[in-house]
């Protein structure tokens, strides 16, 4: 038992150590950073780096947090709405071409984002949306094959008797979806919501390519730019990484159980 705890605690220490050290560094002044050991707590703690990031005119990290929040909200609403619509059609309606089309959707899961990023950049630039908010969200709001796949499985598990009973009472497909299927699908909707928020808050490659300058920076690109511009000013940069990670860590602490089970159910990353 002692050996078990020793290994488990060592792993926990190795996991938390780097995060804790970066957190402590973000509360040091550059002077403290230069004179104190990297392993000691700040003495005294200072919020100067955070003030520079969030209050300063030049850095604009607060703006990046706002843009990222906007992107996440729009993608979340767009992707869940369109995915629910498609999944409902696949799970509950009978129409010619259904199975073939569904397998075509599933097949697109194999396409890695790195492959489509170059042509997507060309297309979005072509329609004049480079370095705009809509350029950031456009490729993601039309539903995700992955979400459609998971939702369809879930919708199919809802007993047909419930739907039939509603039909007898005169409910059309819209009412069935909104009044019966969706209220019963809260767990999978929550799972997909968490997946979407985590994925798009952390997205880096697409914002890196499609935006430049500070107007539409998101937290990941703002952090990367900051690291490039203030190279060596680690106290400021660690404040930025802390701000980039803190919101999702808070979400994780609150929804820990749901997130763990949703990872295990969906195998998503």
């Amino acid at each position, binding site marked *: 038992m002692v050996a*078990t705890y020793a*290994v488990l605690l060592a792993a926990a220490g190795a996991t938390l150590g780097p995060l804790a050290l970066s957190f402590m560094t973000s509360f040091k002044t550059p002077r403290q950073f230069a004179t104190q050991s*990297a392993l000691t707590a700040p003495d005294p703690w200072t919020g100067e780096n955070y003030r520079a990031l969030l209050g300063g005119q030049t850095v604009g990290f607060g703006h990046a947090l706002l843009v990222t929040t906007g992107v996440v909200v729009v993608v979340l609403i767009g992707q869940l709405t369109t995915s629910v619509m498609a999944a409902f059609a696949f799970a509950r309606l009978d129409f010619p071409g259904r199975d073939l089309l569904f397998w075509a959707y599933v097949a697109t899961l194999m396409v*890695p984002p790195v492959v489509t990023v170059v*042509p997507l950049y*060309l297309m979005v630039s072509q329609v004049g949306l480079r370095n705009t908010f809509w350029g950031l969200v456009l490729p993601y709001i039309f539903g995700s094959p992955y979400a459609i796949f998971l939702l369809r499985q879930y919708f199919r598990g809802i007993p047909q008797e419930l739907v039939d009973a509603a039909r007898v009472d005169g409910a059309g497909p819209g009412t069935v979806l909104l009044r019966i299927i969706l209220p019963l699908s809260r767990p999978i909707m929550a799972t997909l919501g968490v997946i979407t928020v985590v994925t798009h808050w952390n997205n880096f490659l697409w914002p890196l390519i499609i935006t430049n300058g500070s107007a539409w920076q998101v937290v990941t690109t703002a*952090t990367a730019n900051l690291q490039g511009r203030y190279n060596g000013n680690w106290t400021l940069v660690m404040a930025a990484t802390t701000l980039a990670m803190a919101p999702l860590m808070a979400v994780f602490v609150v929804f820990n159980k749901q997130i*763990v089970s949703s990872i295990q159910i969906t195998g998503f990353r």
Partner: protein
Amino acid sequence: MRQTRRVGGRRAARRRTALAYGLLAPSLVGIVVCLVVPIIIVAWLSFHRWDLLGPISYVGWDNWSRLLSDPTLGNSLLVTAAFALIVIPVQTALGLLLAVLLHRGLPGSGLLRAIYVLPWVCAPLALGIVWRWILAPTSGALNALLGTSVAWLTEPALALPAVALVSIWSQVGYVTLFFLAGLAVIPPSVVEAARLDGASGPRLLWHITLPLLRPTLFFVLLTSTITAFQTFDTVYALTQGGPSSLKDGVALGRTDVIARRIYADAFVNFDLGRAATAALVLFAVLVVVSLAQQLYFRRRITYDLS
């Protein structure tokens, strides 16, 4: 009477079809515009040369034959394979170890599990930058801890292992979760029976637990492979593909993984034909891996413990 019902039925069917395609319209547009058309464009670009500004010229199989003779792409494929070969075995073994220990259900296991998963919800880019500081030669925490001043990220022999270490660190918790889920469905009676037969410790793990975990193991290995081959953010944050060494006058990055090569070819060197060709090579590799996964899944479903 029968006639009208048939017409009504046909009309109802037509209405249902219209409704279904109406519901599918947004996602169909999305898939065609954001997936199908891009793949066609990538394939088309791989037969052209273009620098994003000047004219586009058709070059036949030039990009493809260049690919074979191009040392930077060969280097990137080797680097990516080496990266995957370090990351996958280590994180799988560590994840399995932690899962087996957590599965004993000692007090505090829930909290420990949450701690292990924590890096996984954080942006890989942000974690990469945190580690860029930790591994910094003079001001970094690792050198402060060890009392050394090693340039972990710029020393040619150390850079790739260092990037792999960061990748492993951020993903072990995720792997642990899958093994925990796999362990949870092994009936205690099977393990108990083996115990009564005298199996214990490593023998129990090797002969009973591991064979029963095979579906999980396969799933973990395949998803890890797909992720490893697409690694970009971590490398961008830590090394930008460097350090480079010159070979026959060509600079070859020690951590220049294939996804970063595609990005750099397209958006730094503005050689879109080459980027598209490299992207198709990566796609082909991943399709093979994914197909293996599909085949495996079919077996996974029929897997039966009884």
